[in-house]
């Protein structure tokens, strides 16, 4: 069985990826409209307050999903959820840098066995180093009984 405390001590809070992004305004507006958004600051690219919507921020993917030396846990991996913390408006067209680390590792046990949760946190910064937003991706792995 995977030692969760050992994984936490070795991997939490260590940056393992740094990726650059530029969000396209039309793409963000399309995502917002397809989700039923009606506010102009998310759907109208000519709005002076236009900003990237939460789902497009949540879609930004780091170059690596896990640290390069993270052990293979086996089992089936699933997308367990996403979170977005909006600190300042993210304007499309600007250069962004996403710095990613493992924020949390924990396990839950149920009738069908143990599930391991890996929370990858990406902090998004602009070119001036200002922190604009944070996204969390929750990966769930159903552990194989023999692990």
């Amino acid at each position, binding site marked *: 069985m995977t030692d969760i405390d050992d994984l936490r001590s070795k991997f939490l809070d260590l940056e393992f990826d740094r990726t650059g992004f530029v969000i396209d305004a039309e793409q963000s507006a399309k995502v*917002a*409209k*397809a*989700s039923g958004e009606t*506010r102009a600051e998310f759907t109208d690219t000519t709005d002076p307050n236009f900003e990237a919507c*939460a*789902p497009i921020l949540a879609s930004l993917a780091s170059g690596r999903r896990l640290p390069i030396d993270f052990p293979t846990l086996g089992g089936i991996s699933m997308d367990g959820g996403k*979170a977005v*913390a909006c600190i300042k408006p993210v304007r499309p067209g600007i250069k962004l840098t996403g710095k990613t680390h493992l924020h949390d590792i924990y396990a839950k046990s149920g009738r069908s066995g143990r599930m391991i949760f890996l929370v990858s946190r990406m902090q998004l910064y602009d070119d001036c180093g200002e922190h604009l937003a944070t996204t969390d991706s929750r990966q769930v792995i159903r552990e194989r009984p023999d692990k």
Partner: protein
Amino acid sequence: MTVQTIADVVFGDEITPWQPDTSLQATRSFAEAVGYSGSGRFEDHGKARAQGLPGALVPGIMGMGFLTSMIHRWAPQGKIKFIDTVFRAPVLADHDHTVTAVVTDIDEENGEVVLDLTIQNEQEETRVFGTATVHLPAAS
């Protein structure tokens, strides 16, 4: 029902439930825009079933979009500071789903409201749940 300021918010209030567009056309459009298209799992029921899925899916982050859209309609001046969504089970495209939210906390001093969020299918099974923290202007 909409709210303009923090003073309009009542603890326990339920935001007017909403049925989002989960059509294949909508999921395809969303998947294309976020770069998820190509495999067919969000665009084609047959291709999704061939992958062992019960049908084409609504992308998880599209569910987040449904929830943020509803919050923005409820609070036209509100700013979502944080939203967390847990993908409990697949949301199937072309099936009716209902998006709901309930006010679970009000912090008048900081102008913040906490909402509990759910997306349920036709059988009233919760497929997505989560929370959001929304900042609202103070009453003038």
